[in-house]
Structures are given as C-alpha cells and as structure tokens.
C-alpha cells in the first residue's frame, strides 16, 4: 500500500513536471489568433493523471502546473483567472468521467476545454475590469473545441499505446 502511494506520488510529480514544461514551452510560441489562446497541450498530463492516478492527483498536477508555470512565464497574475477556470473545468471533466459511462474521452476533453477557456475569459474580464474582452468569447470557445479535440485525441492515443505495466494498478477512483 505504501509502495502504491509512493509510486502514485512519484508519477504525479513526473506528470506535474511534464505539464509545467509543456505549458512553458507553449508560452514561447505565439497564441492561436487571439491572446491567450493556445492548444493547452499541458492538459494532456492533467487528464492522464486523472485517468491513471485518480482525481485528487489530477487536481494536484493542475495546481502545480498553473502556479509554477505562470511564475516561470513571468505572468503570476494569470493564476487569478487560469486557476479557477482550470479547477472548474477539471471538476466537470472528472464528474463526466466518473458518472457517465457512455461518453468518450474526446468529448469530455472538448467540453472541459471550452468550459476552461470560457470561464478564463469571463474571470479575466471581471478581475481586470476589461469587459471589452468578452467580445472574443465566441472565437475563444471555437478555439477551445479544436484544443479539446487535440488534447483528447493525444490522451486517447497515450492510453491506447502506453504499456500496461506502467498502469498495472487499479487506479481510477469512481
């Protein structure tokens, strides 16, 4: 049992590091058309954490990625709007994953991504009092669909082709 916990913590640490690095690398590239719009490939590791380690590890990876990633990217103020959006969208994804049997990981990822980008935009407008930014919401939600599909597909492929011995424990709490 102790070994299992240790194994989970170490794996979550690796996922956190990979998510943070991906987040920072993505920040080096220009956004997709609109400010702040990115594929969000770091979310691949968050979803993989939820699926292979459990929801609480998924949330831990999300918090580490958002805080450390924003800190290193030189935009710590981004935590104010990206963390609430991340927590709410991941909660939605976890609920769908656990309570709906006949929903694919792709659809869950798309919904999570659109929710994330929508809440992030709304929170950003509220916090910064830049209500004019709300006009980007429809375009951002479309970008969210594309990003969700990309993330979902990568997660699907990762799960499909990852060797079973890496995931040999019963892992996802339901």
């Amino acid at each position, binding site marked *: 049992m102790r070994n299992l916990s240790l194994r989970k913590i170490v794996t979550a640490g690796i996922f956190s590091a990979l998510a943070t690095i991906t987040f920072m690398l993505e920040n080096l590239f220009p956004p997709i058309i609109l400010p702040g719009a990115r594929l969000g490939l770091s979310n691949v590791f968050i979803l993989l954490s939820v699926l292979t380690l459990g929801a609480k590890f998924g949330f831990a990876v999300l918090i580490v990625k958002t805080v450390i990633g924003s800190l290193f990217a030189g935009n710590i103020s981004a935590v104010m709007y990206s963390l609430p959006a991340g927590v709410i969208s991941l909660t939605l994804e976890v609920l769908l994953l656990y309570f709906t049997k006949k929903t694919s990981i792709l659809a869950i990822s798309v*919904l999570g991504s659109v929710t994330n980008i929508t809440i992030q935009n709304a929170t950003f407008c509220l916090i910064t009092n830049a209500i004019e930014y709300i006009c980007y919401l429809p375009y951002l939600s479309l970008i969210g669909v594309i990003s969700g599909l990309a993330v979902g597909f990568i997660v699907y492929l990762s799960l499909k082709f990852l060797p079973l011995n890496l995931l040999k424990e019963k892992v996802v709490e339901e």
Partner: protein
Amino acid sequence: MKKREISEIKSLKPFEFNDLFLYAFLIIAVLFLFIIFVISPSKKNAEGFTVKKGENTVCTFTYLNQTLSVNSDYINLVVSEKTDGGFIITVYTSNDKSGYNELTVDTTAKTVKVSKSTCSVSKDCVYSPAIGNDGAIYCAPHDLKIIPTNGSGYVPPVTG
C-alpha cells in the same frame, strides 16, 4: 469507492453515443455566443482609443484630428513619434523607463496594436490583433488596457 480497471481505461473509445448530446450542446452554446457577441451588437465607428493603467487614463488618441492627449500624471511616461502610416506611442511603466509597451497606430485603417512590450514571456498583448471599432488589448503584467473610444458624447481631447 469502486475502482475502474486498467483494461477499462484502455478500452475507452474515441466516440460514444452520449458524445452526440455533448457536441450538440456545445454547437448550440457556441452559436448562442456568436449571436450575442458578434451578430447582434450594433457597430459604431471608433473615434480613437484610450490607454488605461488600472482605473486611470494614461492617454487618449483621436484618429480624426490625429491628436494625443496625455494625462498630466503620466506626461513623462508617454512618448509619441509620427511615422509614415500613423504614430508610434511608447508607454513606459515607470520613470526609470525599464519597462514599456509600444503601440503602433494606423491612422488610415483607424486601428492600434501593441508592437513591442517588455512584459511576460508569452507577450499576449503583442500577439493580440489590432483593434479598431471593437475589442481590447490588455497587458496583464503591466496592467495596461487599450480600448476603443466610440459613440456619441465623446469629446476629442486637446493636443498634448
């Protein structure tokens, strides 16, 4: 709590029947957002733009008169330069002039964009599209906001 087996996770499919409901919901939601924010709003021509730092106005530019009005509190922090197609306005973040946002104003197209900035690594403000009649550019690390000024009741500022 019941736990899901690895084999179950591995057998996840890229498409399930319930996905249809989720995708339908998303299509309706995105269409609704487009109707609310893109199709419905009545468009007004921008008369200029305002640069704000927090709640304070730093400067205001009008396209018609091509005038820049600078708030007296920020007079040492704003530098403007005329170019072929418009103006380049540099807004410094502090008196030591270490940080800045450089705005490029196109007076013909009546647009403004941030062309250079010393903010974060991602430089979202620089990659923001040029704004004309609507939209906004926000530089979170510098707390700088550029918004179009339009509509009636707007009083063109005096040259600064």
